[in-house]
């Protein structure tokens, strides 16, 4: 298994493990978690995958190998700086954005903080479905890393500019997920919530997340 994971790491050009504790933290963004069901989804998926993890609040975010931040829309710069310090220290942080559910004003503020702390430039959120069922979208996000798969959209996406990051997910050809080295670690940004699909036991969502758990 170690050989397989090492091979997968090399194949996916992942950074080697640094000195951070080899554990997974499911971080609760508190009021900045806009979809509580996403938190439940990751919790359920981690348990099903038998990944040992612990929960933590953002106030006392521990060092860890993997940190998952479900459905977050953090506007508090100091909290994001703390998250960034964990990435710089060697963590892989999965930052799932639910910022599409913010008001326009809140989103502008959140976007400014994200670019200021992570240098990650987010575009205005896009509502994929109109009030009626008349919009004919293909309702899938195409993931390219860590595995190629399709998972349903979650109604609102945050497209991301990938000037200094690698695109890992697309909607209709537009990047909505990105991976970026920050210090010794990696920030993985998801602009379309995955957690609710984990809660609904969506097979492809589960496959994607399990692959992430292996390679991160």
């Amino acid at each position, binding site marked *: 298994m170690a050989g397989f994971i090492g091979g997968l790491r090399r194949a996916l050009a992942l950074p080697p493990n640094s000195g951070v504790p080899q554990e997974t933290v499911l971080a609760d963004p508190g009021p900045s978690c806009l*979809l509580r069901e996403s938190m439940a989804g990751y919790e359920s998926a981690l348990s099903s995958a038998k990944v040992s993890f612990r929960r933590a609040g953002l106030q006392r975010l521990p060092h860890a190998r993997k940190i998952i931040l479900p459905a977050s829309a953090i506007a508090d710069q100091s909290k994001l700086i703390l998250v960034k310090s964990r990435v710089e220290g060697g963590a892989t942080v999965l930052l799932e954005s639910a910022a599409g*559910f913010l008001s326009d004003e809140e989103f502008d503020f959140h976007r400014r903080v994200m670019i200021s702390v992570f240098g990650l430039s987010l575009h205005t959120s896009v509502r994929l*479905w109109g009030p009626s*069922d008349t919009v004919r979208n293909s*309702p899938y996000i195409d993931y390219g890393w860590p595995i190629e798969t399709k998972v*349903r959209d979650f*109604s609102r996406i945050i497209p991301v500019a990938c000037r200094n990051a690698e695109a890992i997910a697309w909607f209709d050809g537009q990047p909505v997920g990105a991976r970026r080295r920050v210090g010794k670690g990696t920030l993985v940004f998801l602009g379309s919530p995955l957690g609710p699909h984990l809660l*609904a*036991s*969506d097979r492809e969502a589960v496959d994607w997340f399990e692959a992430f758990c292996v390679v991160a």
Partner: protein
Amino acid sequence: MKKSIGDNEIPKSWTFERGLDLVKKAGYDGIELWLGDVPWFQMSTTDAQVQELRRKVENAGLVVSNVSTGLHWRYPLSARDPKVREEGMRIVRRQIETAQMLGTDAILVVAGLVTEEVPYNEVYNRCVEAMKALAPDAARAGVRIGCENCNSEQRFLMGPREFALFLKDIDHPAVGIHLDVGNIHEDGFAEQWIEMLGPQITRIHVKDVMKKRGRCCDSVYTNIFLGDNNWKAIRAAMTKVKYDGWLVAEMERRYQYAPDQQFYDTAAALDRLIANRV
């Protein structure tokens, strides 16, 4: 069994009092009040105004059979947006409060809405969670939540076994089914729903359905005995499961002339059904 009809059937230009007078004269025992669908009963209606509604109903010689709402088509408990869901929960809680004030023990909820955007699995999980959260409130108020089967409109819980599993997953005596015998269309048979869900039925909505018409410009729903429901079988199933509660008339297509006549005709049809002279 007792018969009732919705206050949303009262012609739009009429007052509540005039409508109550008609309902009583036509021979009904009670009236179903629709939160948010009529001017006299809105989310903004105060407790004192709700008490006043009850006084008017009782003065007319009627009782409130149940509290329904169409607001969940706009604020589904299954919405992805948590703010919309929260509004949906607030509506149910207000239904429970007002039901208690109005002296009835049942409310109707359209529990979830499957759309192209929000798929079945999500809707199912959110509805179960919502009902589990609401059931203790309902039980404390002495009210049962009846989730309505709106099969073709909701695209959710399309068969009686599926509905039974849904109620089993909620697993609370305060949550049952508000069965609409007209809503099953060509996807099943109302009498089988009654048979399978008997003790969990909170109220029965009564209308007929023209099964082969399909949804287009004209309503598929019609007056009792004019459509394709097997009324002999439906009545027999009610006897089989010992259903002795309210039959609530719900007419989608209204008379274009003499609208009050529809109240009398529907009451007469319900009388025949109750008397088992079908």
